[in-house]
Each structure stands twice: as C-alpha cells, then as structure tokens.
C-alpha cells in the first residue's frame, strides 16, 4: 500500500478559547458559514489536491467528529486502501499515553503513516478556513528537495508580532524562525501547514521524543531543531484567503468575511468546492414580510422577520418581527417572534425566546473597550424578554456568565 503523500490533520484539543461552543464536540466540528463545519476545509482541500489518505488526530470527544466524518463519503474519502481515519490515542503493548503535543500526536501514529509508506507527509491544522492546493506546495517541496516546506503568507507589519515569523533568503529558503517576535524581521507568517519528507520527519520526531524537556510541538521544537541542524527549509508563499478561527472573535470575523465580496472568501465558487455532510431538509423559506439582505440562508431555514448581514445555517428559524443582524446562527437555532439578535453567535439548537434581546451594536455600547460579541452555547435557551448584554457568553447551564 504505497502512497506518495499522506495528510495528518491535527484536529486538536478541546478548543478552550471556543469553549462555549465546544461543550459537546471537538473544535473542528464547530459549524461554519452556513453549510459547513471547520474541518470541511482541510478535508476538501485534501480531496481537491488529490490526497486520498488522511489521518485525523484527536483526543477530545471524538464521537461527534467520528460520526460527522463517518466513512468520509461527502469528501470522496471513502476509498479502498486509503480514505480518512480518526486516530485517537490508544494503549499499546508498551503503555498508553494521551497526546502530549502536536509532534507527539504524529509520533504516536508513526505506525499509521508507515503503513502507507509515503515519501511525503502534509501536516494540517483543524481550525483554519482557507482554500489551498496542497499539490502545488508538494510540487515545490519536491523541486527544491527540501526537508520541510512551510506555507507562509504576508501579514500586515503591525500584526506580525502575533505570528510565527519566517525570514527568507532570495531562494525562498528559510533562514530564521521567530515565534511571536517583538521586533519582526519579516512579515511572512507561518500558516501552520507543513510538508515534510517523511523519513526526515520521522527521525526528528523520534529524537524529539527522547528529549524530556521538549514540549513535543511542531512550532516550538521540531521546526527550530531542523533549522538549527541546517536542514533545507523552504517557504511556500500562499496568496488568498486564510484565517485561523481558534477564537470566538475570529470565528465570527470569518463568517462575516463570507458576506464581504472583497474578502476573498467566496463559498459559492465551485472551482474549488468545499464538501460537507448535511441533513436532508426542504429549501429555505423566506416569508411574505421577511426582509433579508446581505445574508446567507440555508436549507431548512424559515425566515419571517428581518435578517441583515448574517449567516444562517440549516434549520434556523427567525420568527415574525424578529430582528437579526451581524450574527451567526448555527444549525437549528431559533429566534422567536419579536426577539432581537445583534453581533452574536447562536450555537446549535439554541433558542432566543419571544422579545428577548441578545448582544448589541458596538456604536451603542456604553464602554466601547469592553464591547464584544455575545455567544450562546449549543442548546442554550434564553427566556422570554431576557436581555443578554454584548460580550456575554452563556452555555446550557445558563449559569456560567462570563463578561
């Protein structure tokens, strides 16, 4: 069973910064952009790039992710001799450990990769929204005969200190790597997408595992070590839309980008399709007195009220006289008659009862510095007439208010 390239997807942990939304699921299973979940992006990128073997590394409530991915059929990853496999930690004859870090997660699954005996491995992250042809990056990796190719993109200079920054010479080779440098020497930020020559990576993973002081992390340990050892590290410059949606704010931002033609995120474009698993629903219904503008609606929706600048996932209901703006409504969310939802994320099957009010516009905030989007976790119910202030996070217990 020989494959040229296998993808390993770090579906990651609990997504603590998204915790209100991930009470029941792994971060990559969080809904995005109406029809999708975050993990649809790397999986569809793999399929469209001709990579048919993907390992998904997760240790946090894999059940939801497992049943979402299933046989991999929506992404054409239900292949004999390949396909998509969920890889939780397991007990082996020599013991059992949870994944200690991103590098350790791959280390623990060397056996899986070796089964396919690939030349190259692509390491992906489960919480990025982007469309990218990995085969182009792989082609460049082969051309330059690099040990590791890292995809990078230009970021504004004033934001560069928030990223892992690469200094690159004229040939595109990486000369220096600095994690969140105070004084960045470059504005090329790592996107956390790597192509490795597998035998090289395997050697470094094995060595890293022997080092008790290591955090077993790609960014902190493996990449710096390879650079220090003088391995050939090449930067692959990506142009296009890319966003890390690891925080509630960035998740909301990315959803809003969908509604902005200039953002570069066009999900109706079919040349690089993103696939998803969705239930069967009748088409969306927009009512006689509805007023929908600059918004997306999805099958199963019923919109009777006003919806502006918002993303409605499937099975969402917006009642008569309700008003929704600048908000993300996840599958099954219900906004009852006359309720108002502004600058908010409503989790799956959450419910805003009649006349309640969630969030508010920044321009109306009393203290603009303390303003933020309001978030309801999955299944959270806000009762009739209740007010939920901006920046409030509510989960199902409706206790844990954090502001």
């Amino acid at each position, binding site marked *: 069973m020989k494959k040229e390239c296998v993808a390993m997807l770090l579906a990651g942990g609990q997504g603590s910064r998204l915790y209100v939304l991930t009470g029941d699921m792994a971060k990559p299973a969080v809904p995005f952009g109406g029809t999708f979940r975050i993990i649809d992006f790397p999986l569809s990128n793999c399929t469209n790039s001709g990579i048919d073997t993907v390992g998904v590394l997760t240790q946090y409530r894999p059940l939801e992710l497992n049943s979402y991915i299933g046989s991999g059929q929506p992404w054409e990853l239900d292949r004999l001799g390949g396909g998509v496999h969920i890889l939780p930690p397991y007990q082996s004859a020599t013991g059992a450990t949870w994944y200690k870090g991103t590098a350790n997660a791959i280390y623990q699954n060397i056996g899986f990769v070796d089964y396919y005996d690939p030349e190259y491995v692509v390491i992906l992250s489960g919480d990025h929204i982007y469309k990218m042809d990995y085969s182009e990056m792989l082609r460049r990796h082969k051309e330059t005969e690099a040990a590791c190719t890292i995809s990078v993109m230009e970021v504004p200079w004033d934001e560069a200190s928030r990223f892992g920054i690469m200094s690159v010479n004229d040939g595109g080779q990486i000369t220096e790597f600095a994690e969140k440098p105070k004084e960045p020497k470059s504005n090329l930020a790592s996107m956390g997408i790597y192509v490795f020559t597998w035998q090289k990576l395997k050697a470094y993973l094995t060595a890293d595992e022997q080092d008790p002081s290591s955090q077993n992390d790609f960014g902190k340990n493996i990449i710096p070590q390879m650079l220090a050892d003088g391995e050939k590290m090449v930067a692959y410059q990506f142009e296009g839309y890319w966003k890390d949606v690891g925080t509630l704010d960035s998740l909301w931002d990315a959803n809003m980008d969908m509604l902005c033609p200039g953002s570069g995120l066009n999900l109706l474009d079919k040349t690089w399709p993103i696939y998803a698993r969705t239930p069967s629903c009748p*088409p969306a219904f927009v009512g006689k007195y509805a007023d929908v503008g600059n918004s997306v*609606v999805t*099958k199963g929706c019923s919109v009777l009220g006003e919806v502006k600048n918002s993303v409605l996932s499937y099975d969402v209901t917006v009642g008569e006289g309700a008003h929704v703006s600048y908000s993300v409504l996840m599958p099954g969310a219900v906004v009852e008659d006359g309720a108002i939802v502004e600058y908010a994320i409503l989790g799956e099957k959450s419910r805003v009862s009649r006349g309640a009010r969630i969030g508010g516009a920044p321009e109306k905030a009393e203290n603009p510095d303390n303003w933020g989007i309001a978030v309801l976790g999955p299944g959270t119910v806000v009762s009739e007439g209740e007010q939920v202030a901006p920046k409030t996070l509510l989960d199902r217990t409706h206790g844990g208010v954090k502001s």
Partner: protein
Amino acid sequence: MKGMHGIIFSYEKKSGLRELIEHRVHGSVPFAGNYRMVDFMLSNMVNAGITDVGVIMHGKCQSMLDHLGSGKSWDLSRNHGGLTLLPAFAYAERRETAGQFRGKVEALACMLEYLRDIRQDYVVLSDSDLIINIPLDDVLQAHISSGADLTAVCTSAPGESSDTYFTLDGSGRIVDTVYDVYAPQGYRCLNLFLLSKDLLVKLVEDCAAHNQYSFRHNILQEKSKMLRFNGYVWDRYAARIDTLKNYYDRSMELLQPTLRDELFCPQRPILAKENDDASSYIDPSGRCVNSLIADGCDIQGNVENCILFRGVRVEKGADVRNCILFKGTVVQSDAVMRHIIADKYVHIQPGRTLMGHENYPLAIARDSVV
C-alpha cells in the same frame, strides 16, 4: 421475514408535463426545490422501515438511474435487499419493441421471478410521482386489523375525470370502482396499494395467464367480487401530478406553511440526494419574499412567490415573480419573468421578458437560452 417490501413503477406514460419530461420519466421530475418526485415515495417507504425496494423502469430512465444510484441517499444501499433497479429489457425484447407496458399488471408479470423472491410478507405498490408523506406502517396496521385482502389509499379530494374513484361502504370496503368518469365521485384512488406478497403473486400469475394487464380493471374492478378490497382514506397533502398547470399549482401551494409542515414533517423526513451546495446568498439590493430557496443560489434581484432550485442565479435588477426555476437557471440583469417554469440550466439574457399566466404557466425547456 415480516414487514413490507416496496415496488415503485417508474415508466413513462402519456403525460401533460410536456417539456419537463422530454428527457425524464415522471419520477425524476424535480419538485419542491430540493427533490425529485420519486424521493417522496422512497422516503415514505424507508421511514416505515422498508429495507427492500424494487423500481420498475422503462423508457427514458437514464435520469432515474443516475438519480437513484446505489440508493445510498435513502439508506437503501445494502448487501442483501436494498434498492433493486428493474429495467424491462427482457420485456422489450420479447415484444420486439421499445414500447410501453400496457398496464401495471403487465409490468409486474415481467418481474414475476423478482416478485416470487420477495422475502417480506407484504408489498406496497406505488407510482413514482405521488407526492405524499404518509406513515405506511399505519396503513399496514389498518390493512391487517381490517382483514382486507388489499388496501388502497384514497382521498376525498377530487381530481381529474380520468382518475380512478372508489365507493366505500361503512366498513371501508370498496364496493365500486370506476374510472373515466363524467365527474369525480367518491374517493379518488392514489395508486398506492398494500397487499400480501402471496396474493400479489397469485393475482399477477392469474392475470398474466389470461393476457390481462390492467390493474384497475382486471384487479380492482374484477377481483373485488371475490376478495375484500378496502380503502384507506388520506385527506392530508397528496399530489399526483399529470399536467404543467397541476405541477405549477401543487408546487406553489407549498408556499403555505401548513401544507409544507404536512409534507415535510420532521418525524418522517423526506430524504433527497446529497449535494455539495453552499448556503444561498441574498443581496441587500433585491427584495426576496414569500419564496422557497434551495442552497447554492445567488440572489441579487427581486424574487417574489418563487420556488428556486439549487444554484439559481438572479442578477441585479431582474424581477422574478410566481416562477419555478430549476437547478442552475440564470436570470440576467433586468430580465422580467412571471409564471414561468424554467427547466435546468435555462439562461435568460439581460432585459428579456417572459410572461405566462397563472392559468397557463409556461415551461422553458432544459438548457434553453432565451
């Protein structure tokens, strides 16, 4: 094994659906934005726990074949049983023609071997173009507890004069069956029947041996003397669609929430084939009201009282009202449309005007550029 087996008839017949069935059989005509007509009956069967369904095909069945595939979308892709496609090749060869079956019984007679191998006790027979969401397990319960030999689902809502009508007695027994009537009378037959496998095989064998081919004449009328045939009255949403006008009216009805709730009740979901469409985008510059909108649409213009299938694009300044636009229709800027049914991938160029009338909706053939 107990339980029911499904048989769906999906061969062509004389039809008033005109352009819509130029390249399709009835069952694969798109309906209600996300579906093909046959999805409804398949979902009814699957929701009632039916695992084995045979689809009898004939004629232009490429679109049906492509649509059904392995049956995976309806959970009917199975190693044993599941979906069986029954094209009538042998039959066409025997008669040295590609013509139609003369009747349902003739179609069944061609599949006798298949019928004999059915592993369930009961068989549900249906056309492929009946739009309904009926709990078939309740029909089975009624069939068993009534002691009837055959149960026919019927409705008190009148239809065409060419339909079949029953007279029921107080016990629900069908005491008279008529068709080609002067005016609709009694209960209209929905061509949805339930009977035991053994009786079905016996009836088909018997009819075949006498060169009888008509279900309604040779079985419903003639055998009702010796056997007990019952009616099961269903007065919620049920549509049998034979004409364009009919197609248009029954589609547009679905803009009423109550009817939609009857047809798409969440306990018995209607399963469609999966697709990869993203959510639909509605621009602020248009007015989009009282419409059903499938995924993947890009709506920049006015859309009012419409049913939009997947991937429809309505450009800025276009004005579309009371229309049904099939998958991939493009309406360019400033075009005006009223009471139009546009088949797949119709392209309306900028500024064009197309007008049908409520009483006479017009259909535009697939791939047409207007």
